[in-house]
C-alpha cells in the first residue's frame, strides 16, 4: 500500500516535471522568428519516416548505425514493459499481464531481453569508442567538460537500466525455480530468453529472502532509472530521441543549394528599381523593422532553434566540414551547441526578468566568432551528414548577413569583390564591356 502510494507520487511528479520542462523548451524554441514549414505534408511524413524512424542517414556509417539501431529498437520496445510496471506499481500486482497473455507474454519479455543484450553490447561499444579508442570527432574543443560528461552519463544510465532489467527478471526466475515467485505458487520457469539462463547461473546461490530483495531492487531500480532518464532528457543532448521526429518533419524540403531570399530586401530593391516610386514617400508602417540577418537567437527562425535542441553532438557534421578538416576554427556542431546554449541563457533571463529583458550579450561575438563564420565554404557537407536533418549552414549564412549588412564587417577582399560586382557586374575588376571578348580571342 505504502509502496503503491510512493510509486504513484513518483509517477505523477516524474511525468509532471517532464511536462513542465517540455513546455519550457517549447517556449524557448518559439523565441525564434516564424517560418512556414507546414507545406507538402505528405512529403514531410515520408522524410520523417525515412530519416527519424528508419534512421536512413545513420547508415552512411554502417557500424555505428547498427550499434545505434540496437539501442534505439531496445529503447522503444522496452517501453512496452513500462505499461506493466505502471499497472503493477499502482495496484500492487506482480506481472499483471502474465496470466492473461500466456505465451505472448513470454515472447514479448524474451524479445525485450534479447534487445537489452544487444543494447548492452552497443552501449559498451559506444563507451569504448568514446573513451578508449577516442574517436577524433568526440574530442574536439567544443566537447570539453559537460558535453563529454553528458554523453558518458547517458551511456552509464543505459548500462544501469539493463542491469536492473536482468536483476529483476533473473532474481524472479531464481525464485520461480524454487516456487517462491509472487508470479506463481508453483515451481517452474518463466521461460524468458535470457533470464532463464541468468536466473539459475547468476542468482541460483542466493536465499529466497535475498532474492526477493534483489528482485525489488531490480524493479524499483528500473522504475527510478526510467524516471531519471526522462527528466534528465530536457537538460541533455540526448533530447534528440524525441525531437528527431518533429525536427525531420519540419525539414527544409528545398534543394540544399537554395538559400532563402530575404523578403525585406526584396521590397527595398523593388523600390530602388521602380522609376515611378516616390523617393520622399513615408515608409510603409510595418511595425518594428526586422534586423538584416541574425545577431542573436531571436533573429533566427524557430526551426533553427529546434535544430539546436535536436543536436545530439555526434559531430558527423564537423568531421565532414572542409574547414574543420583543414584545421580552421569552424565546427558546425559548435554552431549548433552555441545556438542552444545562448537560447537557454537568454530564455532563462527573460523568464526571471520579464519579456523585454536584454543581457547585452549575443550569439554573434559572445559565442560565435567572425573567424568561424567566414571559414565556411557553404558546401552543405554538414547538412548532408546530419542524421536528423539539422541545418547549421542556415545559421552561418544568417550570421554573415548580419555582419555584412548591419555592421559592414567582413574580410577586406570580400569588400573588394562586392564593390566589383556592384560596379562591373563581375567579382573581378573587369570592364562589363569586355564580357564578350572571349568570342573573338584565340
Amino acid at each position, binding site marked *: 500500500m505504502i509502496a503503491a502510494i510512493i510509486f504513484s507520487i513518483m509517477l505523477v511528479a516524474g511525468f509532471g516535471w517532464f511536462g513542465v520542462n517540455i513546455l519550457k523548451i517549447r517556449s524557448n524554441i518559439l523565441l525564434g522568428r516564424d517560418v512556414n514549414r507546414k507545406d507538402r505534408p505528405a512529403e514531410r511524413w515520408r522524410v520523417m519516416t525515412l530519416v527519424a524512424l528508419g534512421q536512413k542517414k545513420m547508415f552512411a556509417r554502417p557500424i555505428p548505425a547498427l550499434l545505434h539501431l540496437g539501442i534505439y529498437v531496445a529503447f522503444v520496445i522496452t517501453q512496452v514493459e513500462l505499461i506493466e510496471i505502471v499497472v503493477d506499481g499502482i495496484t500492487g500486482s506482480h506481472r499483471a499481464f502474465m496470466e492473461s497473455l500466456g505465451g505472448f507474454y513470454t515472447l514479448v519479455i524474451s524479445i525485450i531481453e534479447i534487445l537489452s543484450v544487444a543494447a548492452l553490447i552497443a552501449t559498451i561499444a559506444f563507451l569504448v569508442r568514446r573513451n578508449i579508442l577516442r574517436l577524433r570527432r568526440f574530442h574536439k574543443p567544443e566537447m570539453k567538460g559537460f558535453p563529454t560528461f553528458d554523453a558518458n552519463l547517458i551511456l552509464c544510465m543505459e548500462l544501469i537500466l539493463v542491469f536492473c532489467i536482468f536483476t529483476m527478471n533473473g532474481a524472479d526466475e531464481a525464485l520461480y525455480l524454487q516456487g517462491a515467485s509472487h508470479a506463481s505458487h508453483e515451481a517452474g520457469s518463466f521461460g524468458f530468453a535470457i533470464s532463464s539462463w541468468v536466473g539459475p547461473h547468476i542468482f541460483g546461490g542466493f536465499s529466497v529472502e535475498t532474492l526477493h530483495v534483489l528482485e525489488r531492487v531490480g524493479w524499483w531500480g528500473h522504475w527510478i532509472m526510467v524516471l531519471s532518464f526522462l527528466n534528465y532528457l530536457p537538460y541533455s543532448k540526448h533530447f534528440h530521441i524525441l525531437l528527431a521526429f518533429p525536427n525531420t518533419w519540419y525539414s527544409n524540403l528545398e534543394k540544399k543549394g537554395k538559400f532563402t531570399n530575404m523578403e525585406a530586401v526584396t521590397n527595398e530593391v523593388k523600390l530602388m528599381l521602380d522609376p515611378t516610386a516616390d523617393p520622399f514617400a513615408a515608409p510603409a508602417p510595418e511595425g518594428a523593422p526586422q534586423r538584416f540577418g541574425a545577431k542573436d537567437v531571436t533573429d533566427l527562425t524557430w526551426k533553427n532553434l529546434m535544430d539546436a535542441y535536436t543536436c545530439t553532438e555526434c559531430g558527423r557534421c564537423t568531421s565532414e566540414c572542409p574547414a574543420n578538416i583543414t584545421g580552421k576554427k569552424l565546427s558546425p556542431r559548435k554552431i549548433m551547441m552555441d545556438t542552444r546554449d545562448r537560447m537557454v541563457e537568454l530564455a532563462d533571463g527573460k523568464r526571471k526578468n520579464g519579456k523585454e529583458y536584454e543581457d547585452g550579450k549575443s550569439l554573434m561575438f559572445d559565442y560565435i566568432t567572425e573567424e568561424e563564420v567566414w571559414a565556411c565554404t557553404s558546401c552543405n*557537407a554538414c547538412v548532408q551528414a546530419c542524421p536528423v536533418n539539422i541545418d547549421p549552414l542556415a545559421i552561418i549564412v544568417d550570421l*554573415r*548577413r548580419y555582419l555584412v549588412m548591419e555592421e559592414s564587417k567582413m574580410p577586406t577582399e570580400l569588400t573588394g569583390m562586392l564593390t566589383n560586382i556592384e560596379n562591373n*557586374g563581375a567579382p573581378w575588376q573587369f570592364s562589363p564591356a569586355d*564580357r564578350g571578348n572571349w568570342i573573338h580571342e584565340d
Partner: protein
Amino acid sequence: MSTLHVPTMAEMMAQGQTPDILFWVGCSGSFDDRAKKITKALVRILNECKVNFAVLGAEESCTGDPAKRAGNEFTFQMQAMMNIQVLDGYEVKKIVTACPHCFNTLKNEYPELGGKYEVIHHTQLIQELINTGKLSLKGGGMFKGKKITFHDPCYLGRGNDIYEAPRELIEKLDAELVEMKRCKTNGLCCGAGGAQMFKEAEKGNKEVNVERTEDALETQASIIATGCPFCNTMMTDGVKNFNKEHEIQVLDVAELIANAAEL
C-alpha cells in the same frame, strides 16, 4: 579548329530570330583565361550539334551568387532583378550554364524574384545531345582506357542532387571512371564555395584544395574531371602544389567531350 559561331541575343533579335536556349557564360567563363577554354569547348559542342543558342555578351552580369554567399543580400537581389529584366526582355525560356553557382542561383533563387526559367547544367545538355544522337563520339577518342576521376562540385552535387550526368559522360569516353574515397553526397569541397574564392582562407593547418587533391591523387587517375570553373582553378592549383601538373590534367567534362569528339 573552325571558328566559333556565337550569336548574341541582341544580334538575333535584330534579325527577328529567337534562340532555343540561352548560354549563360558566367563571370568565370567570360573573364578567367582557364575557364574561357571551357566556355569555348562547350560552344564547339553546341556548334557541332547545330544548337540554336545565343549569349547575352556585354548584357550579361554576375548572377549575384558570391554576394549572396558572402551575406550581402542587397547586392545579390539588385543583380538578380537587373538580370531578370534583361532575360525577360529577351523572353528567355531555357538557360544552360557551365557554372554550378550560376546554375544554382538561376534555377533555385531567381524564381521567387520573378525570374522563372528552365535551367540546366552543361553536363545535362551534353548528355541530352549524345542520347538524342546529335553528338557522337567515335569510340573514346584520346581518352580511351585512361583513368579519370570526377570531382563533384558542391552546388551541382549536394546542392542540386546532380551526380550522374557528368559520370555518364565520362563513361561514354571508354575511360575508366575511378571514384575518390569521398564522392557524390560525401564529396569534399574544393574550397572555393561560399565566396572563399575571393578571399584568403582562415588560419588552419592545410588548404582545402590540397586536402581534396590528395583524394584525387590517391585514385591514380591521370585526369581530374570537374564541372565547375572554380573547382577547376582549385584542383589545378592543388595539382601544382604537388608538382604533378605534367602528369595530371584537370579538365572540365565539356573539354573531355569536345576533345574526344575531335571538335
